[in-house]
Structures are given as C-alpha cells and as structure tokens.
C-alpha cells in the first residue's frame, strides 16, 4: 500500500468524523445543555391555563398550516431557528419562559408577524403556542 493511499484513507476517515460530529453537535448541545424537548413543550404549553381553549385555536391554526403539525418544528419556529433563543428558553424557569413568550408576542405585532386564524389576527407566537398545546393534548389521548 502506497503512502499516498494511506494518507487518502486517513483523510477520508477524518472528514467523515468531522461531518458526523457536526451533524450530532446540535443535538448533543441541545441534549446536554437543556435536557429533552418534552420539558420544553411542557414549559411552553404551560403559558395558557385554559389549555383546551388554546388547543382549539391551535387546531384551527394547524388547519391552515398543516406542515407545522410537529412539536419539534413548532419549537424551532418559536425559537426562529436560532439556537441562542432555544437555549434561552430552555434555561429559563417557567415564569421567565412566559415572559419571553409574551415579549415575543408583542414583538410579532410590532414587526407585522401576524397570522390569520379564521379571520382572527393573532401573533405568530401565540398561534404556535396554541398549536403546540393542541399537539401536546392530542399526544396524551
């Protein structure tokens, strides 16, 4: 086996390892830094005391956005796909988490991030929190 072949094989193994590490990195960071996502779902859906009311609004929203009917996707969307936002929400206690959601709702309205749920003009965040609540209730049935 020539030296060139050995070098090529080692480079390929190294590259593969790097790619695998990159792919698993986000999950690893998320898992070790914040714990499982189910905790996150509980924290977010705890925002509304009237969960059944929120869930019905959430179902209405999901009718118009069926591609969002996935808890992980909704959490990513609620964090705007930003790992920093995710970490902040994950690290927050319940009260802090609710303050974050409320602030984000207000920011949605300021920036025009509103959705039409059967004519009702809601912030993207509140519609998605409601949708997450609907999925969480459905999952327990």
């Amino acid at each position, binding site marked *: 086996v020539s030296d060139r072949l050995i070098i090529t094989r080692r480079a390929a193994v190294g590259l593969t390892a790097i790619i695998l590490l990159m792919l698993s990195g986000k999950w690893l960071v998320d898992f070790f830094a914040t714990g499982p996502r189910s905790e996150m779902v509980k924290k977010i859906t705890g925002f509304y005391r009237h969960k059944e009311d929120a869930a019905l609004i959430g179902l209405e929203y999901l009718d118009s956005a069926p591609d969002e009917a996935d808890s992980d996707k909704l959490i990513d969307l609620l964090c705007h796909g930003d790992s920093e936002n995710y970490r902040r929400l994950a690290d927050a206690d319940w009260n802090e988490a609710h303050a974050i959601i409320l602030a984000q709702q207000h920011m949605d309205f300021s920036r025009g991030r509103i959705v039409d749920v059967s004519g*009702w003009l809601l912030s993207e965040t509140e519609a998605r929190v409601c949708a997450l609540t609907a999925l969480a209730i459905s999952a327990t049935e």
Partner: protein
Amino acid sequence: MFIDARSVPEGSAVSSDICIIGAGAAGITLAREFNGQKMNVCVLESGGLEFDATTQSLYKGENTGPLTIGLDTERVRYFGGTTNLWAGACRPLDPDDFGARDWIPSSGWPFKRTELEPCYKRAHKLCGLGPFDYDINDWIRDPKDNPRCFIPFDNGRLATTLFQMVPRKPDDLRRFGSVYRQDLKASENIKVYLFANVTKLVSNDGAELTNVTVNTLSHNPFSVFARIFILATGGIENARILLLSTDIQEAANAYDLVGRYFMAHLELKNVGVFLPSPTVSMQYFRDNNSDAKRVDVGKCRKKSINWDGATDAVLTISEKLRHEHKLVNFTVALEEFTPTMPPAPPRGSSLSKLSSRSPDSLLFHLSRVLADSDDREAGIAKEASWQGKQLVAYRLTNTSETTPNPNSRVTLARETDQFNCNRVALNWTLSDIDLESLQRGYRIIGQEVGRAGLGRLRSSVPTRFEGSTSKKRTVFWSQHHHMGTTRMHADPKKGVVDANCKVHGTSNLFIAGSSVFPTSGCATPTLTIIALAMRLADHVKGKLL
C-alpha cells in the same frame, strides 16, 4: 315667497338674477345666503312641502352595474330634499382628502382644506354644531379625572375621531325644509316655485345659458330666465340634467366627463369583531353606543367645549399610517354586543369532544386565552375578569372612501319619465384598490390593537367584490351619499367644474352639491355640501354685486 308652479300660465317667462335649481341642503343654503341681498332669486323645487309619491317616482331609474343603490329611496324629492331623511352626522373631510395621493388615481381637489375652513365654520353655525374641532383630545377629559373617559384608540397610529350630531331640539335643525321655510317664505327677494321640474337647460350659443325649461305634473311648461344659474339637484340628478340638456353638451361635456366618476361611501356591516383585552376599559365606547348613556359621554367632555350636542366616536387610522401603507380613508364604528359566554371546556377534555370550531366559537376560546395572556402581563394569577360573566365584544361597521373610477357612471336610460325625459341609469363600480386597501387596513388595525395590548381583531373584509341585487343584498351598502359625477378640476379635460364650481366651457352655469367632489373622503358629505354652497354664494355675490 312660495309659488305653486302649477298655477303659472303655460308658455310664460319668469325672470330673475339668479336661478337656483333644487331646494335641498345646497339649494336652501344658497338661497339663505342670498336672502336680503340686492338681487332677485328664483328657487325651482320639483316637489311640494310634503312627500308625494308621484313626484318621488320621478327619481326612478335603472341600476346597470354590479352594485345597486335605491335611486328613488335614497334621495328625497320635496322641499328640503334629502335633508328630510338626514341623520345629522357631521364631520369635515380630512385635510389629506383634498390632496393628490399617488396611490389613488384622479385624486386631489383644486384647493386645500384651509381654503374651505372659514365656510366649514359658518356651516357649523348654521347646523347648530359645536366648535370646528374634531381632535378627540380637545374634547375629552383626562381619564385620570374620570376612568370612564379613557380612549383606547389614541396612540398616534390608531385614532378616535368624532362626528358631531345636528341638534334635534328645540328645533330639528336637520330638516332644512322645515327650519328655513319661514325665512324663505318671508323673503322679499326670493321666490320659491314648488312643483317646478327643470327639464332642460337652454342656451343659444352653447356657452351662456339663457333660460331653463320648467314643467309640472299638471303639464304647464314655462321658462325661467336668469343671469346666473346654479344647479343644486344632488349627486346624480345634476349629471342627469346636464346630460339631458343638448344645447350645452358641446361646452359642458366636451371631454365626456359628465356622469363619470360616480362615488358613494361604502358601508360594510359586520366587517369584523374587536375583542378587547379584559384589562382595557371600553367604557367610553360603551357609553357612546347607548343613547341612554349619552349623558355619561357628555360628562367626559372638557369644560372648554361649550356645546351639549351629541357626538359619535369612531375608530380610524392615523393619516401618517394611511399614507405609509397607501390606504383609502375609512372609519370604523364599534357596536357592542354581548354573546352568552359558554362555560370553558372542562379541563382534560378530549379535543375531539370539544365544541365544533367556528369563528364564533373561537371568540370565546380566544377571550379566555387572551385573559390568560393579560394575567401574565399583569403578573397576577387570577381568573379571567369575565369568567362566568357576559363577554363584551364589538362588531365593526366600515364606512370608506371609494376611489374615483371613470367607469362608475351615470348615463341616460332609454325609459323616460312623465316629462318624456330619459330616466337615469347608474353603473356603480368599485376599483380594485377599494377592497384591497380595506383588507390591508383591517390587518393593520389588527396588528396595532395587538401591538398596543388592546385586544384582538377578526377581519372579514370580503376578498372579492360581489354585486348586490334586490334579491340578494351582500355586505355592501351605499350610505346614500352620491358624489363625483360633475367633478371639480382646474383642467377642463379632467373635471366638469372649475375651482369656483362653474361648469367649464360655460359662462353662467354653476353646480352646487356633492357631485362636484373629486374624491369622497369618508366623512358624511352634508357639512361639506353646505360649506361649498356658502363658498359658491360668496363667489356669485362677488360677481353680481
């Protein structure tokens, strides 16, 4: 003096300095302005002093367009004109209604509102209104003094504006035909001919009117000669009489503009719902909604407002925001309703067993969700303030400007009336921007009430236009305000009358009334009609005296 035109000998000629055709808001205002002046004035009114079905039937016509109006029900044909039906809500056009807006084709008046303001103030006096001031902050006391006076929509982006209502007591000042009857009857220089229908404007050279042909239902045609003629028969009839008058077609209608650009304020009932946050006081609007509580609204009035008439408050978008988003002008009336609040879904309910979903049921679900958000905001863990009580929400009714559209027009129908004159045909058409702008506008209101923490809004502005017929009335309604058919513009290629309301191409024919409005704004038009009539009277007096 009042004269029954049916008693005038057939073929006779009446002479006057000024001939006013029509005795509605504009015609009576003009006549009052000329009362006691050194000029003879002749007022020609189609009807008598009371309603008469045969005379009223002269207004019958044909709706040929996708939207219809009640041609013989939205206008009134007897002394006093349509003020006989007037609700009495007054507001001037907004300053930007007079300007050219690049997103509204053919917009812009030949003068600014400041030019009309002295006449607006005179019109206020005539109508018994309060100060010429429509800024809510100048009217309403600080809510710190009285929490009932809190105005939720007043943050520089959303605004609350007022309509002043013409007093009904001791005299009903809305009814010009009753209130000013005695003045005109006693006048020494004014003769009012009742039952006198103008069928034609006559000119020898096509530019200067010599006389008008008058007829009555008793068929005794006669002529009225004058130095100056003022057509004041309303937003539709002004155009019809011009179109019927072949002698002046070449001059007055050289650019085929007469009858075009018909506009009417568009009313959309139940165009949305406003659900206030539980922590937001809507007391002022609640009081404002209730006739019985108008006195409470009065208690919110600043002492500097030395007027005890009624007002109506409506929601609107600030001029800045309207321009930023290139919107038409519109106002939103809020009507309180109290649907019965069903109990909250039991905790742990199966979603599939919960009540069926609908926009109405969403109102209840959203009210509880919104209360949860508010609690968080306030940092107080409490049940929703209306838990177990009645939910209060507000239905929205829109009144909006419709934009000038040359295809929206009055023409002559084939059918003729009792005088063998063609009846009117109306093709009322909207432009795409009219609805599209409202959809965006309501979305902006929804955004703004959310941003300000006032609540949530449901918009149901139709996404497309559907016509209304006698069989099927849609959400689209005319507000009985007919405008634009003899529009005002300095350029004869773009308007029928000039800035002084003189018909282009003629020397002595003027037009009064809402037919001269180049754009409609969203304010009720009568105050502007009166102010313009006063301005025209000043101009005519300057010419004759």
